[in-house]
């Protein structure tokens, strides 16, 4: 088809995910239809020069001019059946070749719709690409042999900043929702699991209209002895109003709290209510730990800007330890370099290892695990309570508190428990998914993304990597598979579900997400879906799982980072074989028990028959 000169013009779209297979639309159960997914990958479209230029315009025009205006009109009027079709200048281009690593090329027609880019060969039994615009991280234009050089298009279709124009609002499931994921993990229902039989805690509605802290949920768990007024005052002393709340109570009674940094400021202010609030956690004469996820120097600098750390003189019962974990654009920078290294499969061994090292990604993983282990140690071995915070208390703090819980709490290693953990710590805990996940590693080179004010960060990805490291070291202690982690991760970046939209509970309530969109948990928790995420070798492990954080023990998560460049089939096959083996073992056991019973019954019957017959002769 497109043979000669036209072939030289290519558009590279680097996307976050979702290559769908034949005939599977997005309303089909998406996650199960994906082979192994997530991380970033890229496809290239090549075709006739003139046609591609038109297509490119249709990507470009609406974004630069049309969207801005139309988005204004759209504010507040979501829900209409109207989509963006009229923005698209040329909805289709013929004779396009799609190239991807590891898979054969596909030739066909490229279409652009309100939500997807679709490449279809319009033949039976061939693959179709259905790509959510939201998945697109960067669109690059390449004119390889003619002009040379790369024209990077800095925007992507995904940059529609009005949340409610996003696809989840238009997505309607084709199945009945058995259990609504929006209400599956409320503070109330999790409360009893959290505090067990302890009588020292209560659910507070102090934040019911989100005025005390806009990134907290309406209900939080606080010490019973502290009244709401004290909490309100204490909140004003913490960054973003994030006063200390309970996130985990260990079986020995020690507790884990998290908060924002105290607003100590250069003059060393104190807040009696804040002190009262956290001291209420400790028993009389008991001591606790404050784990600060920033370096000492960083905390000092924060002090001069109005933030800071708890001063010893005002918190005599607490011992402060700094366990630094890098943040925000440093992480994104690290991820960008890692991806660059992972995607270059033709480089030399030394170059690969050098880039892996200089990306620092594994160092970040190690720092995070190290910090979580320290917190877990304080709770489990020293029997002391811990307050964890960084500066905002919305990023590394959450990573640390949630990994600590996975290490300590067997429940968090089950599918439902893990969902509850993400819901509790990340979604209700106020990790700003909307802002952080707007861009990922590939877009980092674009200058607009580099702006540290934008606060794109892969902290959640870092957390998931840590969970994978734990999974790798304890493959039998988790109810779910690696694929489960990857599925959640990809939905946190781009999804037909509303779960990860918005930055916090308040925003999600404003958007009425629970009415207008479907929850990811509603999808995953359907029996036929949840089965696909079951770990065949899972044996509930009630013990604490202490991971090894030695460098030799940590490995690159190849199922995520290398899945587009290195064939992941061996791992998949191994797991499939394990599952089959386990299934067979179970079946044979059942059969043997049945046959034994049958045989014994028969022998008994024969025996009695013979003993009755022999005397008669």
């Amino acid at each position: 088809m497109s043979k000669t000169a036209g072939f030289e013009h290519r558009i590279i779209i680097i996307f976050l995910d979702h290559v769908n297979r034949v005939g599977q639309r997005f309303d089909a159960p998406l996650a199960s239809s994906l082979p192994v997914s997530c991380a970033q990958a890229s496809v290239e479209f090549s075709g006739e020069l003139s046609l591609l230029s038109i297509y490119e315009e249709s990507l470009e025009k609406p974004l630069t001019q049309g969207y801005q205006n139309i988005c204004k009109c759209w504010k507040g009027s979501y829900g209409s059946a109207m989509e963006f079709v009229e923005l698209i200048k040329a909805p289709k281009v013929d004779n396009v070749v799609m190239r991807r690593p590891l898979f054969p090329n596909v030739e066909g027609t490229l279409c652009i719709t309100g939500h997807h880019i679709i490449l279809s060969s319009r033949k039976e039994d061939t693959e179709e690409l259905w790509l959510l615009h939201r998945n697109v991280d960067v669109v690059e234009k390449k004119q390889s042999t003619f002009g040379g050089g790369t024209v990077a298009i800095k925007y992507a279709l995904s940059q529609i900043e009005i949340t409610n124009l996003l696809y989840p609002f238009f997505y309607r499931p084709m199945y009945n929702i058995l259990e609504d994921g929006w209400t599956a993990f409320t503070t109330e229902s999790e409360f009893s699991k959290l505090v067990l039989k302890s009588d020292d805690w209560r659910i507070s509605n102090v934040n019911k209209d989100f005025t005390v802290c806009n990134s907290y949920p309406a209900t939080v768990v606080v010490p019973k002895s502290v009244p709401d007024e004290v909490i309100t005052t204490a909140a004003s002393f913490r960054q973003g109003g994030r006063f200390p709340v309970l996130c985990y109570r260990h079986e020995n009674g020690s507790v884990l709290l998290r908060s924002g940094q105290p607003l100590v400021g250069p003059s060393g202010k104190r807040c009696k209510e804040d002190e009262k609030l956290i001291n209420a956690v400790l028993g009389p004469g008991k001591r606790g730990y404050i784990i600060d996820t920033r370096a000492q120097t960083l905390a000092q600098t924060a002090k001069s800007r109005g933030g800071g750390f708890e001063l010893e003189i005002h918190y005599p019962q607490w011992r402060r330890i700094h366990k630094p974990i890098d943040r925000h654009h440093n992480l994104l920078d690290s991820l960008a370099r890692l991806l660059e290294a992972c995607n270059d499969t033709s480089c030399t061994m030394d170059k690969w290892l050098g880039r892996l090292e200089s990306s620092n990604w594994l160092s970040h993983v190690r720092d995070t695990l190290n910090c979580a282990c320290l917190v877990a140690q304080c709770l489990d071995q020293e029997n002391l309570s811990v307050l964890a915070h960084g500066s905002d208390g919305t990023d590394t703090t959450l990573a640390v508190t949630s990994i600590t819980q996975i290490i300590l709490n067997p429940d968090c290693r089950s599918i439902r428990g893990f969902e509850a953990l993400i819901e509790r710590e990340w979604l209700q805990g106020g990790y700003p998914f909307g802002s952080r996940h707007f861009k990922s590693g590939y877009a980092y080179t674009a200058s607009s993304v580099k702006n540290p004010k934008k606060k794109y960060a892969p902290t959640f990805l870092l957390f998931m990597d840590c969970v994978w490291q734990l999974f790798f070291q304890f493959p039998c202690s988790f109810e779910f598979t690696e694929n489960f982690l990857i599925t959640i991760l990809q939905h946190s970046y781009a999804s037909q579900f509303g779960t990860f939209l918005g930055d916090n509970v308040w925003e999600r309530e404003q958007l009425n997400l629970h009415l207008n969109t479907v929850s990811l948990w509603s999808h995953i928790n359907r029996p036929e879906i949840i089965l696909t995420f079951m770990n065949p070798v899972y044996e509930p492990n009630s013990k604490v799982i202490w991971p090894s954080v030695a460098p030799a023990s940590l490995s690159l998560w190849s199922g995520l980072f290398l899945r587009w460049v290195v064939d992941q089939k061996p791992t998949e096959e191994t797991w499939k074989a394990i599952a089959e083996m386990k299934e067979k073992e179970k079946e044979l056991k059942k059969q043997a028990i049945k046959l034994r019973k049958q045989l014994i019954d028969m022998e008994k019957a024969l025996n009695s028959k013979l003993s009755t017959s022999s005397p008669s002769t």
Partner: protein
Amino acid sequence: MKSQKKLSILLGIYHRIDNVGLLERYSSRRNAVGALYLTATHLIYVDHDNKRETWILHSHISSVTKLPLTPQGSPLQVRTKTFLSMTFVIPKERDAHDLFISLSQLCQPTSIEDLYSFRYNMGSEDLPREAGWALFDLQLEFERMGVPNESWTMTSLNKDYEICDTYPRYLYVPATAQTAVLLGSSRFRSRGRLPVLTYLHSTKAALCRCSQPLSGFSARCVEDESLLVCIQKVNPNTAQLVVVDTRPKINAMANRAAGKGYESEANYENTRFHFAGIDNIHVMRSSLTRLLETCELKTPAMAAFLNGVESSGWLRHIKSILDAAVFIAKTLEDGSSVLVHCSDGWDRTAQVCGLSQILLDPYYRTIHGFQALIAKEWLSFGHKFTDRCGHISIDPKEVSPVFTQWLECVWNLIQQFPSVFQFNDRLLLCIHDHVHSCQFGTFVGNCQKDRIDLRLEEKTYSLWGYIANHMNEFLNPLYKPDTNVGFIQPNLAPQTFKFWREMYCRWETGLHPRESLTDLMVASKDHINSLDDHIRLLQKRIKLTEEKFATHPNSNGENNTEESVEDNRLTYKKNLLDEMNMKVQRKIEYDPLMVTSFANKSSDGLSLLSSDYHDKTEDIMALAKLSDELNSVALEWKSVRGVKECPCSTPLDVSTRKSHCWSCGEIYCARCLDKSASLPGHISQKQSPVCRECYRVLIKSASVESPE
């Protein structure tokens, strides 16, 4: 292992030092205090508080270093060839010095006849000395490839090692090559290692190996050139021969100054030359040293560790070897013959030839084939194991981890193709350890001639016999022989090469995944086999009982039915006997998949068998007996997860295999699970591993009920 221990106890303890501290590298825990024992064969450290025993074979010790004195005593660092590193703090300096002197002498004897293998006795292991020595015969291996044939012939020119003392006796050369050509070529090749066949691929493309030509700057040899022409001509596919020089080109050029070098393109027609760029043994040795230094870093940062792995260059070398092997395999698959050499043709040549055969031929991915490959490529063609492994004290510059590297390449392939290998990585570790241990005579000596001169077959045991006896440990539960493909093409992207933690950090038990999928799969597989066997017996039993029911009318014709049941029994027994006999026969022919042990006495099985099915006048099997039969097979097996120690209180960690007793389903260490018996509940009467307690019960019931 266990037998070694018993032996050394028999031999007596030379020396004992108490209150010896052990420096822990990672944990901040208080250092352990224990006792050091020096025996004739081992250095043993016993830490009573943690119930930990460490046995270090003298021949495994690679270095003993005295570290600067500390207030607690004088530290002595012992490193082994299995990458264990321990630092003992000995209270008295004189003790430390004595130990240092003794160990330095014991770890590397000066004479080859002082090696452990000449003293080693199998002890309780039921393995005759001759077992395994005859398993791998070079001629049989070539017959498997269909050689000799009309193109390739066997020559006995080297029958008494006259033309090349590091080659095997019988060489395979093109049928068209004249004796004069062969002799001439051998004179032109370093150490007489002339081009000979090592593998004939199914495409009729041949893989040949040799050493570098003595070409210097201008010398040529007409015989050598015509031998290469012969090799090229007997391949009907193409008119081209590919010569792979595995060295970097610069090294090959440097060799010219010494009168060696590489083939001049001008002199060899229809030949394509390729340099693979694999570094020499000295580079490899220092690379490994640096890698081990990285592994031994105290509390390393992530970056320091990665940097250490990178700067050691180790993975780069591994990749370069695999790169070359894939190049050769592809060329052979495409139909061109390949001639491989390096300098002497016994290090890099063995590495890449061995690997490319694994890539091409599914046979070499079986346990038997893998051993055959080592026997051929490494042992017969003269890889200098004694020199490279430093078995005896010789020039330390001869020592190099060439074979270890090769095993690592195979390990990498196993990672990429988990279901095409019949063996698991335990086999690689086992072979690696015994290549250095000298417990078996298999790897003693530098070439076939050495081994014959030392009369190893009479004086020592063979590792192949040991492996055949422990086949179960080395089976890969994921192996799928039926879907096996021919040529496997690995991904050579640098991202696919992993650091081999299980090898180089093997003894840092804290570093490994805490739950091992391999253990779990092996247990699952064994359990499935056991259950399957048991179910077949149950089905048979049920059928028999049903027949009894059917043929047993209430009162009349009783005698008839009795007889017919008897007949049934007899035929059944006869079938089983036949089956048994066939199995025994097959075992003699060597069946790698047999679960039964090598030295299994068939009479054992038969006595148990007859005890179960012997003709009793009383026809009805007592229910008690039935339950005995049923109880002999465990339906529930203990989970391998979370098992910390064997009932004998030996700690079970990542590196030790956790084995189930097939009769009671409990988990034991290898030392406790040394018995095997056929279970009455199994129809096949195969020997199954059982614990001592169950063994006693099984043997007792067998002997009591046996009428003989």
